[in-house]
């Protein structure tokens, strides 16, 4: 079954390169993954995830796509599967990744290159 588009045509037609809008469709699709990430506010839940990642993901009913994205630590794939960065940041924290590590991973740069690119924005 395919889900009908939830967003008004005007905003749905809008394309911002390299940017996804977290609209109703994405929030519906990403619900399980984001719910799991929200649970990581609790230190005990972070430990449970680390102890048995597979079982923890199963408990939250992640889709195959979401489970694969988490297993491969691939943030762009998590976003494609409906993940929202505010919640994903809590998962990234478990993997020892901060927002600059995540930025580097998504842009295909090393962390040093990503940081240099940010610094360069002060100049231009």
């Amino acid at each position, binding site marked *: 079954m395919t889900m009908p588009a939830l*967003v008004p045509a005007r*905003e749905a037609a*809008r394309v*911002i*390169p*390299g*940017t*996804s*809008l*977290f*609209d*109703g469709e994405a*929030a519906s699709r990403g*619900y399980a993954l*984001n*719910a799991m*990430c*929200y649970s*990581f*506010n*609790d*230190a005990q839940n*972070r430990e449970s995830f680390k102890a048995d990642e597979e079982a923890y993901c199963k408990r939250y009913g992640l889709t195959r796509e979401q489970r694969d994205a988490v297993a491969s630590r691939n*943030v*762009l794939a998590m*976003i494609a599967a409906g993940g*929202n*960065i*505010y*919640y*994903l*940041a*809590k998962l*990234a*924290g*478990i993997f020892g990744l*901060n*927002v*600059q590590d*995540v*930025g580097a991973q*998504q*842009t295909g740069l090393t962390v040093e290159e*990503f940081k240099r*690119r*940010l*610094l360069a*924005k*002060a100049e*231009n």
Partner: protein
Amino acid sequence: MAQIVGGIFTSHVPAIGNAIAKGLQDDPYWKPFFDGFHPVHRWLAAAKPDVAVLFYNDHGLNFFLDKMPTFAVGAAARYENADEGWGLPVMAPFPGAQALSWHIIEHLVASEFDITMCQEMKVDHALTVPLALSWPGADTRPVTIVPIAINTVQHPLPSAKRCLALGRAVHEALRSWKSDERVVVFGTGGLSHQLDGQRAGFINKDYDHFCLENLGPAPDALTRHSAVDIIELAGSQGIEILNWIAARGALGESVREVSRNYHIPISNTAAATMLLETVTALQKVA
């Protein structure tokens, strides 16, 4: 009526909280940002506010996608900070200005803002970092608080126009609050930044300067862009400028700029701090 003394507008990047915890204020990376708070500290020492009304956005500490209010007003006697999942030290609870919260809520609903009212509301770095920056070195701050959370995560987002109108309605509520309390308003977050997608690291100096130039004298200029326009211009999380726009509305018609600081980058963000003083406060001082 309560006296609105001014508004503090600042980025709330979590890494700032870590830098405070580690005492990195004079570190070369951090100093250009922290130095922007010296005028704020001097001003606060003279303005001596009793209450802080804070417009901010929750990042998945209190609100999840199961129930996502567009505008949520705290009405608690006490607000807890808590573990956000990635290691920021948890701050001591903040006392709420509960009676003022209910007064604001009454006024907002009477003005047809159908807000969500919260007697339990955990407050995250978007509220705690600006308070820690404004009153450094203290475990407790000399103010009680009213937190007002704006949804900046789940689309559809409120428009900039609606956020400015919300702030203006809060201004009316403060003006009709029968108390001699001195109120400082906070708008937190921004400026341009984007954490997610191939465009991660996006910064737009031109748009940021447009916001800083117009926020004080002509805030309606910031409402010409839709929420999606702002995301295009300022990045996915640059949309946090909505908190600044609402806070600006709460200051009333005329303001004077006391200080401004803009620095690229703090973490992935074009960081900014601005202090606006209300004209009434100015007359009282003079």
